[in-house]
């Protein structure tokens, strides 16, 4: 018997019971739709996190001092004082594939304007810092090379600091006091909002690195060097180059520990991807359960259908239908339910995810893979849950089946 003929029979049978066929499909429709919608939400979370990590500065390497090891209790990481401004200059000069290098120091101080005061992180930075962190100045200007050279007492404020010290007033050109020293405000940064770790990125005051080192903290070392690599592919290579250059500059003998650390944000990115991947799988598998429930619905209806059509099966067998013929007929019926249900479900899932994005003010990402997987799964479910009823139909004894009322 031709396959097309079995297919026609299946369609005829499904059309004969339109409402029942539709209700049976509903299980699959909801299952597939839920998988696609949930996975698109999960993928949306993932892309949100990726964007916010990238906004920290992409392709970043952070060089920080190691911990004090000589004698006595070991100090905290970053307690060594061997990392110098000159190291940053050397990295910029000697290593290729680097866009920007920015050494920083930072400390927490009380910042005062008239009768208002606010405690904030005060960072000594170089002009390149603006590029590395993708900062933008809304009014005024950022710390310049000239400010660096002259150890100027100038400050650039984040918007949270402005709000707390000046309210609605324009702070540019005003004088403030940081740790009792007078500073002139030269710029205000555009708001960056919270970081994905929950830090307020606007609660910052930036002053020239040299001013911070010499006039505020009285130190000659730097607390970290931010390096922006030009190409994400070269992160590992550049990291290695920096490590060997600094070992050489710090005269560290072979076999001795580094007195610095080089970290990159890719590891943070990976952890985040793992986490969001887990969320996606969790959401997807909860939705997947409804797909299996839908499959059981198919099986249930097919069992009823076989009992109801016992006589038809008897007639077909008397007229020469074989086990295989009957099996195929019923199996195609349940697979067709799976296929049509799957297709409608894909439409529904995409529509849902679009609606969530539009009205839920939430980013959703539809990718091809969950669509393919849930479709293949729904067809597979139609097949799997159709086998038992189809076998039952095909095994009927023709005499018994013909006698069935």
């Amino acid at each position, binding site marked *: 018997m031709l396959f097309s003929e079995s297919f026609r029979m299946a369609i005829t049978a499904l059309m*004969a019971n339109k409402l029942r066929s539709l209700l049976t499909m509903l299980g699959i429709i909801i299952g597939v739709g839920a998988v696609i919608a949930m996975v698109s939400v999960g993928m949306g979370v993932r892309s949100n996190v990726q964007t916010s990590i990238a906004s920290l500065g992409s392709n970043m390497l952070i060089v920080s001092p190691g911990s004090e090891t000589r004698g006595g209790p070991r100090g905290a990481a970053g307690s060594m004082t061997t990392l110098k401004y000159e190291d940053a200059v050397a990295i910029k000069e000697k290593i290729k594939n680097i866009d920007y290098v920015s050494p920083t120091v930072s400390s927490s101080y009380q910042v005062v304007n008239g009768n208002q005061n606010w405690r904030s992180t005060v960072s000594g930075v170089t002009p390149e810092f603006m590029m590395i962190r993708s900062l933008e100045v809304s009014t005024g200007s950022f710390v310049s090379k000239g400010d660096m050279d002259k150890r100027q007492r100038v400050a650039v404020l984040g918007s949270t600091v402005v709000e707390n010290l000046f309210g609605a007033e324009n702070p540019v050109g005003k004088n403030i006091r940081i740790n009792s020293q007078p500073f002139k405000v030269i710029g205000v940064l555009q708001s960056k909002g919270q970081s994905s770790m929950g830090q307020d990125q606007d609660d910052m005051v930036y002053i020239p690195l040299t001013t911070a080192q010499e006039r505020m903290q009285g130190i000659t070392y730097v607390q970290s060097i931010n390096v922006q690599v030009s190409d994400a592919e070269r992160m590992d290579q550049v990291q290695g180059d920096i490590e060997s250059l600094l070992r050489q500059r710090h005269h560290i003998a072979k076999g001795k520990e580094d007195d610095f650390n080089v970290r990159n944000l890719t590891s943070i990115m990976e952890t985040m991807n793992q986490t969001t991947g887990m969320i996606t799988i969790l959401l997807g598998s909860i939705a997947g359960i409804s797909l299996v429930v839908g499959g059981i619905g198919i099986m249930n209806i097919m069992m009823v259908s076989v009992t109801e059509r016992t006589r038809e099966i008897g007639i077909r067998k008397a007229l*020469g239908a074989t086990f295989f013929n009957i099996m195929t007929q019923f199996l195609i019926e349940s697979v067709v339910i799976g296929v049509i249900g799957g297709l409608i479900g894909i439409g529904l899932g995409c529509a849902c995810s679009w609606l969530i994005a539009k009205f839920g003010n939430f980013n959703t990402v539809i990718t091809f893979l969950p669509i393919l997987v849930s479709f293949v799964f729904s067809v597979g479910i139609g097949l799997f849950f159709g086998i038992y009823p189809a076998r039952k139909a095909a095994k009927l004894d023709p005499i018994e089946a013909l006698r069935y009322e």
Partner: protein
Amino acid sequence: MAKDEKHLTIRLRGIKKLYQVGDQEVAALNGIDLDIHSGEFAALMGPSGSGKSTLMNILGCLDRPTVGSYQLDGQEVAHLGDDALAATRNKKIGFVFQNFNLLSRISALENVALPLVYAGVGRRERMERAMHFLDAVGLGDRADHQPNELSGGQRQRVAIARALVNDPHIIMADEPTGNLDTKSTKEIMEIFEGMHEKGRTIILVTHEPEIAACASRQLLVRDGVITRDEGKGVVMDVV
């Protein structure tokens, strides 16, 4: 018998059908020997419980005997597998049932064409052949009607067209007029007589003596054995 061995269509020898009822064995058929030649019109009679339906099922390849030999056109079919039996039913036997057994959701034409589906005939040829046989039973104008839109007599004629469509040697009819009025019964019996004249082998199960009297041979089954075997014209009393 005067007829040649090769025209022997059906040859039963020592056919027994045993059922297990509790721990007792009951014989529905208890040793049947029967020869039916090509072109014969045989009526199978007997009271209910006599075993005539069981015999009919075995002759129609719907069932297998417990013991004995059944040769159909010289081929042993008593112990064929399910698929081989299905193929035999499809090619060699046409069934006509008391309650018509048409599929209710499809048209008369598609009902007639159904055996050809399982014979693997292409759609166009199927429809042509089905139409031809539907015309032959005088229902060409009802091809698109569903069975529930037809009268009892018309339904039985559709069923006969279906039985004939794959050109089988043998027509098995199980009480074909049992559910019909006198007029339809007459029409249907005329169709059977016409088929007989064209040389088809017909086996008809009935318990109406006047129907059986149309046949060229009458067999009486009682308690699982054939007790009488008469020619045309004799009116047998079943009870």
